Structure formats: C-alpha cells, structure tokens
C-alpha cells in the first residue's frame, strides 16, 4: 500500500515539475517578447542593423524559399491531376493549386524554410555572443542588447516575410503551371485564366498575415533561445535546435489557428 502511494506521489511530482516548467517557460518567453516589443518602439533605433537583417532574412532566403515553392507547386499539380482524374475533375488543377499554394503551402513551407535558415542562425549568433560575454559587453558600452540585437531582427522578419511569401506564392503557382502545361497537356492561357479567376484578394491577404506572424515567431524564437543560451558550445548547439523546433511548432500551430479563424466560418 505504501509502495503504491509512493509511486503515485512520484508520478504527481513528475507531472507537477513538467507543468511548472512549462508555465515557467511560457512566462519567460512572454516577458522576453514584451521587453522586445516595448524597446522596439522607443529610440535609439539601429537602421543599419535593421537593413542588414532584412537582407539576411529576406534576400538571402529567396533561393531556398523560391525553389521549395516551385517544386511543391509542381508536385501539387501532379497529385491533384491524378486525384481529380478519378472523378473526371482533372480540370480543377489550376484552381486547387492556386488555393492550396496561396492559402497554405506558400506561407507554411516558406515559414518553415526560413525558420530552418534564420532562426538557427540567430540562435547560434546570439548564443555565441552570450557565452563569449559579447552581450554583457554591449551593456557596458552604452548599448541595450534588446534594441541593438533583438528589435532589428524581429522588425526585419515581420517586414520581409510577407514579401518573401508573395514571391514564394507566385513561384508555387508557376511550378504548377509549368508541370500542367508541359506534362499534363493544359492550355497555357486557359490555365492562367482559371488561376486568376480563383485567386481572391482575401487569400493573398491571409497569406501575408500568416507570413508576418511566422516572421515574428521565427525571429522571437531565434533571439530568445540564443539570448538565454548557456554552457559553452554544447549550450549554443542546444539553443539552435530549440530555436528551430519551437519556431516550427509555433508556425504550424499559428497557421492552424489563423486558418480556422479566416476560413473556418
């Protein structure tokens, strides 16, 4: 009887530790985000840092995001063609491709690719700066690390992600069009006409809102995990992994929430 009680108590303690840890993490993250946002609006600003981050996050992510969209758009068109043919609905390829790309795959895959590229790089850079005391050095050199390091990254990511996703959407649709016209025998003008008819402004707007939200989470996770890393090289490695994994989860979760809110009713 005592043994059973002890086991039960141990299980409760384990559960409690996990729950407290979870709430502690959420609290720390919320505080970090709050500090970053409050510093973001007050000067001094660092436009050079902002420009550099926009270049790193936006411009240098273009090839990887563009290729992802191009390949996915093509594969999507092929699958819709095969699936649609069973119900004599192969003609739906352009409509379903454009909706699938713009509403979901463009922003989500773009977000995931940028998270893989950028959240990891931010966590590694800030993490190394933390363990080599460069972040402490900033504060002794009259510079607030939140304003100098965190704010430009968050603002840059929120600004450039929508543009990146717009390009990614266009390339995704282009991938579908390429495959449909080259392999599946679609008429080019007709394909583009149908695409234009089914592409709604709301879809594009939701895509850009998603992109901005994803950009926020990517930069927030990269900065948060990097800023709080400890324990030398291994700690920086952990921070990098955690940044990417948590950014992925937040992107997929927030995508679901936005999709349900915008398209669910």
């Amino acid at each position, binding site marked *: 009887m005592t043994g059973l009680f002890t086991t039960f108590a141990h299980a409760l303690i384990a559960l409690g530790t996990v729950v407290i840890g979870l709430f502690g993490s959420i609290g720390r993250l919320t505080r970090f985000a709050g500090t970053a946002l409050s510093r973001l609006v007050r000067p001094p600003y660092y436009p050079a840092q902002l420009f550099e981050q926009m270049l790193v996050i936006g411009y240098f992510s273009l090839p990887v995001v563009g290729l992802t969209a191009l390949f996915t758009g093509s594969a999507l068109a092929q699958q819709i063609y095969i699936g649609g043919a069973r119900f004599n609905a192969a003609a739906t390829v352009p409509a379903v491709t454009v909706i699938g790309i713009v509403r979901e795959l463009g922003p989500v895959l773009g977000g995931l690719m940028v998270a893989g590229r950028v959240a990891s790089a931010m966590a590694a850079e800030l993490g190394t700066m933390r363990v080599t005391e460069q972040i402490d050095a900033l504060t*002794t050199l*009259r510079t607030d690390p939140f304003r100098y390091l965190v704010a430009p990254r968050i603002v840059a990511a929120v600004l450039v992600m929508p543009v990146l996703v717009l390009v990614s959407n266009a390339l995704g649709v282009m991938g579908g069009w390429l495959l449909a016209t080259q392999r599946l025998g679609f008429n080019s003008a007709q394909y583009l006409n149908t695409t234009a008819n089914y592409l709604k402004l709301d879809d594009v707007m939701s895509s850009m809102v998603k992109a901005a939200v994803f950009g926020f989470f990517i930069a927030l996770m990269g900065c948060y995990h990097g800023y709080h890393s400890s324990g030398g090289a291994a700690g920086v490695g952990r921070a990098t992994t955690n940044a990417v994994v948590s950014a992925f989860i937040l992107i997929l979760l927030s995508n679901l929430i936005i999709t349900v809110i915008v398209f669910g009713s």
Partner: protein
Amino acid sequence: MTAKIALANVRKRFGAKVVLDGVDLSIAPAESMVIIGGSGTGKSVMIKSILGLIRPESGSITVDGREVTGLRGRALADHQARFGMLFQGGALFDSLPIWRNISFALSGPARERRAAAIDNLARVGLGADVADLRPSELSGGMQKRVALARAIAAKPEILFFDEPTTGLDPIMADVINDLIRTLVTDLGITALTITHDMASARKIADQVAMLYQGKIIWHGPRAEIDTAGNPYVDQFVNGRAEGPIKMQLHSL
C-alpha cells in the same frame, strides 16, 4: 571620504547554490583593488552585481554613496555608462572591425570615431595598421589590448578587469599588467580587478581582498599579502595544494 564603490552584506544565490554570502567591500576613489580567489568563489558574480547585470537578493551596493541595486531602465543605463570593463575573453564583437569595436560607445561622425579609436590603440601600444582588421585576425594578447582600448575609449570613471591575464603567456601577461597599472595611474581611474594570477595581483593592486565561499575573508594593502597571517590567504598566495582550502575534485 566617501568610498567610490561600497558593498554591504551583498547576497546572491543561484538555486540552492549560495554564491555571495554577505560580501562587504569598500573601494576608495582612484584606488586599484584586486580581488583574489579561486574559480567559482563568486568573483564574476560580484562584478556583475555592481554593474547591474545581476540583481543580488539582499544587501546594498553604492557608487559615490548612491544606492545602485534595483536600478532600472534609463537610471540603470546611466549607471552602467560610468564603467568600462575588460572581459575575460575580450568579448570583442567579431562581426565588426577593430576600430568600430573600440569606438562602439562613442558618438559623432565616423571620421572622428575612427581617429579616437586610433588614439586609444596607441595607448595600448598598437598601431593604426590593426584598425581595419577583424578580431579573429589578431593574437590573444593583441585582442586583450584591443579590448582594453575599448574599455577606456569612453573615458569611464571606473574600470573592471575580469581575469586580465588569463590565457596569455607570462611576458604578454606582464605587458597587460603594466598597461593596466599605467592607465589606472595616468587616468586616475578607480579599478577593480578579479584574478587568480598572483603576479598580476602584485603588480596591479593598491589593495587586495580575498573572496572565499562568497565572503571577503581578508583585505589589506598589497604589501601585506605575504604577512597576512591568514591561513587561507597564505595557501592561495603561495599556491599550495595543502591547507584549509580543499579543492573539490569530484561533484557531490
């Protein structure tokens, strides 16, 4: 005379580990204080508490008689602007060239900041030719000197040195010690150094204090460290394995 920096009964713990256990210390203006003590005795935590990078649980820290624990926002930034610090690893920003590192805290047009950086490089015995290099292109000793130039560039009232000679060969270590001594004397700066290098302590210090298990167990003028009559200080100063300080060779 008011102490430049005074700590009274400062306590700080991380989880169950007590790092500072009631530290009392007073540093006079333009005095060079050296804190000696082994690894993990709380030296870095003490310095970071004075800088406001770490918040102690209790106790008082005053600079020029003004309480600085609990400062926030603008007041904390103003407080931190009074200090220059030489970090153990240099902590140079590796994405920036040397001159931008040194002039980081300065404002004004780039040409003036560059000129100021070159002036400060000369102070630490380096030429203008390194100004456009990156920190990774310099040797450890040169990086330390650049970090020193950066620490003094904004003309701080107080300088902190965290293990200034760690990782340097004995000759370069002595060069750094000489530089620190000269800068402190010439610029009339109040200096606080933490080190476990006794050669460095003997060269830099006006006053020496020993931190052990989160407390200052002895302090006095440099000349008295060999005749302190304190077995802990004696063991540390002479670097003996035998004595009251037991090294923890395995985790508990």
